[in-house]
């Protein structure tokens, strides 16, 4: 006899197992529609690998695992994929989720599959791969991927392997029937697990003492092996993983820890069987045992159900009466959840469909005030203080909830069951747990946002600093230039130049104030020098080209000619200028003053005075002329203008321009003027001729 320990608290609700555990397991058969949710386990949902219209065989993978924390999904019979879409799934939220929907062809044709001949020869990793590819997730209720749970690191020592055959929740008998009918397969599965985990001390199968037939069957099957079948007193919730470990080993899993921390690995009876089928026969997890019970069903029994079978199909098999049923529950009365929709499928974790009548499982009465009786604390299997947690939960005092180890609550519902005020304590804890998890996620996100915000701020600041640095560099460079120029500050330099020039002019030629004339001459002289230089180079190039017989000789020649012409022109301009503005300044001045007309020798201060002087001189000259000469000049001038006007007119006529009329009138006017002038001259001549 193996020693067992007791756990704190626990309750003894009415078991109600006899209704369903009297008949052997029956096959539920093939419904006309199967629905496979992609997420039937804890972790990342699987990814559909089939397409609509594709024909699949029984056991064919229809959705692949995505990453380590995921398991694949297999078709549970042969048929055609009719849809991949959202469908209501068994979940307390009553929400829909992506599902693969299959229409069976009725042939139930297996895909080619083969078990492992001798798993003892297989590598651990290969064995785990077989288990993962068979889509096995914990079948006790949580649906944790088995391959992950069984992947024991080398440094980790597992002392005890525990197989959970407790099935402590009322009404459920699926594991009970399984143990009774398939004990040999279960034991074979446990042996595979033993090989995988290699427990250093022992392997225990824990079964409550309310299942004597199951105990006997297992004991018989395990005879001659090192597997110990342990029976212990019935109490809810001894089937909880941590509770069972405490019962069988006396060790408590630390808060927030895993069973592995105390050297234990726990597996469910159903999971052991599934692992046996997968290893020994190569069959993936495509069916499970589900209890259909409750007084609203005429037939209470266990079915071997193909995964994906709608709940309504099972209920029909049991002559379910909707009008008698108070509510439909998936799972047991303690931890199950209400089903709103009977089209949801049976999944890997669905161990029971409970259809109780209102008398059997009355709806909870409205809760009343907490009377601080302490019953909840007495029954709590996790040794928590449910009453305190309740107050903190209502006050949303999350820090205090955490300080009171809310996260160790297994949500077994014992406190709610015991509460004389009917307070739905577990609901408070579930909500608060979710809130705490949400707050933690929010905190992580806030931290991340802060980091991103700060990183962005830093980047913006850096860019701004870079801009500022560039701006400063530019400013500095500008200042540098300014300093360089300061040695000859532009304005100062200009003033200096002007002064120097003035001084030069003043010293050279005190009487010449004609700066402009001097500048023009300098410009002309410069142009001339430039052109002369260009002419020289051009001539040089031409000579070279001629020597080399280059093709460009002609071009050079024209350029020389053009430059030559320009040079001559420049010379003429300079000569003309010198003639008009005689300056005898320095070497560049030309002594032309002697040849200049007398009246032009009058040199005044500036150009305007000069012009006035010119005009005066002309008038004096004109006044010196005789009247005859003046009249003759006028006639000659008008004749000249007339000739010009006539020339213009002819040109315009040839071009057929638009100014013909204007020019024509101008010519007429000039002709009239000429006639007048001629008349005046002739009259004068006659008068003078008549006088003497």
């Amino acid at each position, binding site marked *: 006899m193996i020693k067992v320990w007791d756990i704190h608290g626990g309750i003894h609700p009415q078991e109600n197992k006899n209704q369903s555990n009297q008949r052997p397991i029956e096959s539920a058969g093939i419904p006309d529609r199967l629905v496979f949710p992609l*997420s039937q386990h804890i972790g990342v949902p699987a990814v559909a690998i089939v397409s609509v219209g594709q024909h699949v065989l029984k056991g064919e993978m229809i959705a692949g695992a995505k990453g380590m924390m995921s398991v694949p999904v297999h078709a549970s019979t042969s048929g055609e994929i009719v849809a991949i879409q959202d469908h209501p*799934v068994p*979940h*307390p*939220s009553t*929400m829909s*989720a992506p599902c693969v929907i299959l229409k069976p062809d009725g042939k139930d044709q297996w895909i080619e599959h083969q078990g492992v001949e001798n798993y003892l020869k297989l590598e651990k990793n290969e064995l785990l791969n077989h288990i993962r590819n068979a889509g096995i997730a914990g079948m006790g209720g949580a649906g944790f991927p088995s391959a992950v749970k069984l992947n024991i690191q080398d440094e980790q020592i597992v002392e005890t392997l525990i197989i959970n055959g407790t099935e402590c929740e009322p009404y459920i008998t699926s594991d009970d029937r399984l143990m009774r009918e398939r004990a040999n397969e279960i034991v074979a599965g446990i042996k595979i697990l033993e090989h995988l985990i290699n427990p250093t001390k022992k392997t225990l199968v824990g079964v409550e003492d309310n299942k004597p037939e199951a105990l006997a069957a297992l004991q018989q099957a395990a005879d001659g092996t090192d597997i110990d079948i342990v029976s212990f007193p019935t109490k809810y919730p001894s089937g909880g993983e941590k509770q069972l470990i405490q019962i069988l080993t006396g060790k408590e899993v630390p808060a927030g820890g895993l069973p592995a921390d105390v050297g234990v690995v726990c597996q469910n009876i159903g999971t052991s069987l599934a692992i046996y089928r997968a290893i020994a026969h190569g069959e993936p997890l495509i069916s499970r045992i589900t209890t259909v019970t409750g007084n609203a069903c005429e037939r209470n029994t266990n079915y071997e159900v193909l995964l994906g079978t709608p709940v309504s199909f099972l209920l029909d098999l049991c002559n379910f009466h909707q009008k008698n049923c108070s509510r439909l529950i998936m799972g047991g009365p303690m931890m199950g959840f209400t089903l709103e929709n009977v089209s949801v499928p049976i999944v890997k974790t669905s161990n029971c469909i409970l259809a109780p009548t209102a008398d059997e499982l009355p709806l909870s*009465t*409205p*809760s*009343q*005030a907490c009377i601080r009786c302490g019953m909840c604390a007495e029954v709590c299997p996790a040794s928590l203080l449910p009453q305190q947690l309740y107050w903190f*939960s*209502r006050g*949303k005092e999350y820090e205090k909830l955490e300080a009171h180890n809310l996260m160790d609550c297994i949500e077994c519902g014992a406190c709610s069951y015991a509460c004389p005020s009917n307070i*739905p304590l577990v*609901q*408070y804890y*579930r*909500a*608060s747990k*979710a*809130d705490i*998890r*949400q*707050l933690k996620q*929010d905190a992580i*996100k*806030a*931290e*991340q*946002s*802060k980091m*991103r*915000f700060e*990183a*962005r701020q830093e980047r913006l600041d850096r860019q701004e600093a870079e801009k500022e640095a560039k701006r400063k560099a530019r400013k500095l460079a500008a200042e540098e230039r300014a300093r360089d120029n300061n040695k000859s500050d532009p304005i100062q330099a200009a003033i200096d130049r002007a002064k120097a020039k003035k001084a030069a002019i003043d010293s050279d030629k005190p009487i010449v104030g004609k700066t402009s004339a001097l500048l023009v001459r300098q410009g002309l002289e410069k142009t001339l020098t430039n052109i002369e230089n260009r002419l020289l180079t051009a001539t040089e190039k031409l000579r070279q080209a001629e020597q080399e017989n280059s093709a460009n000789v002609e071009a050079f020649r024209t350029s020389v000619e053009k430059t030559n012409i320009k040079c001559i022109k420049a010379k003429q301009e300079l000569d003309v200028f010198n003639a008009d503005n005689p300056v005898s300044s320095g070497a560049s001045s030309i002594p032309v003053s002697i040849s200049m007309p007398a009246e032009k020798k009058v040199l005044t201060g500036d150009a305007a005075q000069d012009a006035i002087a010119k005009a005066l001189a002309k008038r004096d000259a004109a006044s010196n002329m005789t009247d005859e000469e003046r009249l003759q000049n006028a006639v000659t001038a008008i004749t000249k203008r007339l000739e010009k006007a006539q020339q213009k007119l002819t040109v315009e006529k040839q071009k057929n321009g638009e100014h013909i009329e204007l020019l024509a009138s101008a010519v007429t006017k000039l002709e009239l003027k000429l006639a007048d002038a001629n008349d005046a001259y002739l009259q004068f001549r006659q008068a003078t001729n008549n006088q003497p």
Partner: protein
Amino acid sequence: MTEFISQYPFLAALLALLALGIPFGGLLGFAAVKFKTEGDPIADQVEALLPQTQCGQCSYPGCRPYAEAIANGEAINKCPPGGESTIQALADLLDVEAVPLDAEHGEENVKTVAYIREDECIGCTKCIQACPVDAILGAAKQMHTVIISECTGCDLCVEPCPVDCIDMLPVETTLQSWSWELPKPAEIIATDHSTEKEVTA
């Protein structure tokens, strides 16, 4: 010495106090310089409680400036994204009365994330420049999109969009994010039970 004390008790007391005061004052002054706290520890603690959406609804340019303002006596009820829980946490931290959210700065709404209608996006990059957490991806004349997991729902990107192609969509509950709700307090005393039934009936 004793003679001096007995003769001039007042002066002696004064001298004694001075003799004590000067070295201890100096010690305190030295400690104040030597162990000077870097930064503003209260602002840091306040900032840790703020939701870091950087939305500016509090009229400060980000959570840090608001945290600093709170440390200097600003009201704690100007953060709509944080809502009542943040106000409560701040009140606990600063030991002040928790006050209701100041409606002037917005209401506590359901969590949203920005969503760019990508067909309509013209690629102007204005939203990218507005996003305080760099959660919008895109380039000039290229379609932009929001990195949902990084979006804080501050809706600062909505206003600059010249073609109004950004929507603030509530975060959808998925099977993974779904959670139980706190039961409604239906707590009644036993005698009320029958009357309530009648009322509902």
